[in-house]
């Protein structure tokens, strides 16, 4: 395995960005499977490397792993900011596949996962760009549309407005439930969804709202699977177990 930190110019964002990569260069294959890992709310492109054994996991399974940093954007095309969603889902795959020809290009070779805000980000990106990602591993992931919001001029409110705008967002593309419903109306392949959360997670209720939405869909079109960890909270250990379970679940 080799590990790389890349610094590149993003035309979508208009600035240079950092990414961490793990590459299985000794794998005897012409095509790498790629796991796109999204960091949490106070994290960056180092987050998964510092807090988990992702490198060992990637080596055992022969995976390439891409870990982009997206500042504090929740991986979305911000309402009043930059288009981080397009950067991660459109620009980065194009740049990295050109740089590393062995990176898989098909959606079944590109799966996305994340923890906490990264879990929301993985759902947002997987449902917004179904042509790119074939499966989603959403860990401790709630829907931003379910978060309480009050336009009270606080720093929290301002950050929320930068990302999603003002008012209710339940009927906008920032809502996971809205995205999940809208995608069913399009004639496109749907991503598989693996969703996991610890029983002692402080945002368990938000996770269950997402679970309830997907489990009510007739015929389970997203092959939605939910797992609750009875011993875990919103912790690094939960993240570690969940990412391994996700990879097992999808056969990687």
């Amino acid at each position, binding site marked *: 395995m080799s590990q790389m930190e890349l610094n590149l*110019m993003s035309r979508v964002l208009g600035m240079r960005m950092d990414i961490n990569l793990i590459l299985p260069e000794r794998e005897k294959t012409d095509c790498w499977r790629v796991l796109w890992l999204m960091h949490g709310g106070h994290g960056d492109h180092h987050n998964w490397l510092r807090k988990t054994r992702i490198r060992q996991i990637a080596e055992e399974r022969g995976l390439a792993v891409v870990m982009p940093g997206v500042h504090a954007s929740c991986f979305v095309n911000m309402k009043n900011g930059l288009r981080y969603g397009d950067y991660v889902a459109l620009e980065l795959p194009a*740049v990295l596949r050109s*740089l590393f020809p*062995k990176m898989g290009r098909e959606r079944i070779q590109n799966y996305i996962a994340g923890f906490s805000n990264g879990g929301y980000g993985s759902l947002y990106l997987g449902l917004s760009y179904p042509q790119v990602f074939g499966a989603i591993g959403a860990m401790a992931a709630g829907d931003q549309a379910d978060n309480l919001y009050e336009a009270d001029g606080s720093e929290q409110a301002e950050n929320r407005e930068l990302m999603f705008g003002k008012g209710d967002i339940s009927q906008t593309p920032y809502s996971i439930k809205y995205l999940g419903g809208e995608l069913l109306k399009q004639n496109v392949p749907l991503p598989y969804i693996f969703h996991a959360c610890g029983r002692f997670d402080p945002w368990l209720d938000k996770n269950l709202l997402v679970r309830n939405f997907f489990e009510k869909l007739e015929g389970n079109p997203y092959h939605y699977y939910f797992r609750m960890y009875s011993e875990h909270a919103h912790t690094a250990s939960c993240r570690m177990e969940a990412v391994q379970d996700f990879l097992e679940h999808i056969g990687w």
Partner: protein
Amino acid sequence: MIWMHVQMDSTALNMPVTLEILAPQPHGDNEGQKRRILFLLHDYGEDHTWWMRSSMVEQYASRNSFTVVLMSGDNSFFVNMKQGRRYGDFVGQELPLYCREVLGFPQSPDCWCIAGCGMGGYGALITALRHPDIFGWIGCFSPTDLTEEFLWMRNRQLELVFGSLEEYTVSQNSLLWALKRLQTIQDEAPELFYCIKERDCREQQRGLFESLNDVLYPHSVRIRHVVPKEEWRYPDTCLEQFMNYVSESSDSNNVKREAPAKKEV
């Protein structure tokens, strides 16, 4: 340009290594452009960061669409040390394989360059002469001439790398050995771009160049007398001229084998 800070496990060196790689950022304007890769070797006492600190390598690489790979040789002269690690195998075999596998570079020697200054100049020469099937272009900037006895008296490290001076002269790490071997496979000889400082016209440097020229003729060999504005600009000036030369030569599709034996500029 994309800057990659790479950590990999080297089988040849039996330890993890760090590389810096500068690569042209893929975009519509440069699609289909010829890809070239340059292994850039540092001087004695330095490391993989030296060229980034001592030159405008990123600007030259961007202008000429090069991917540049910077690695550490740890005072080994980039050879398999007599008492130490196998830096020759690392630079000449393992790293090219890594770049082909990961970055998708073709095997054609016309795409592969190696260059260096001082110890790196020596390393570039010995590596390319030992692997003419990989490297088509050599940039040699005032390479260390190891036939100079005073070097061996001054630096005990040389014995760790090469053994004694007597052992060196008959070993596979000597330029003489590499040149003799190359004579048996002349069709594959790389192009040589050789820089010396105008002030540094020691007989030994010219003697080294003449030896190289005798073997590599009739392939094109260029010698440049480099006169930088300040002493510290010497490696930077050499690098710029070398990269421009490779770009212009290969883009104009010059038939290398018909070029004159040497030209002094």
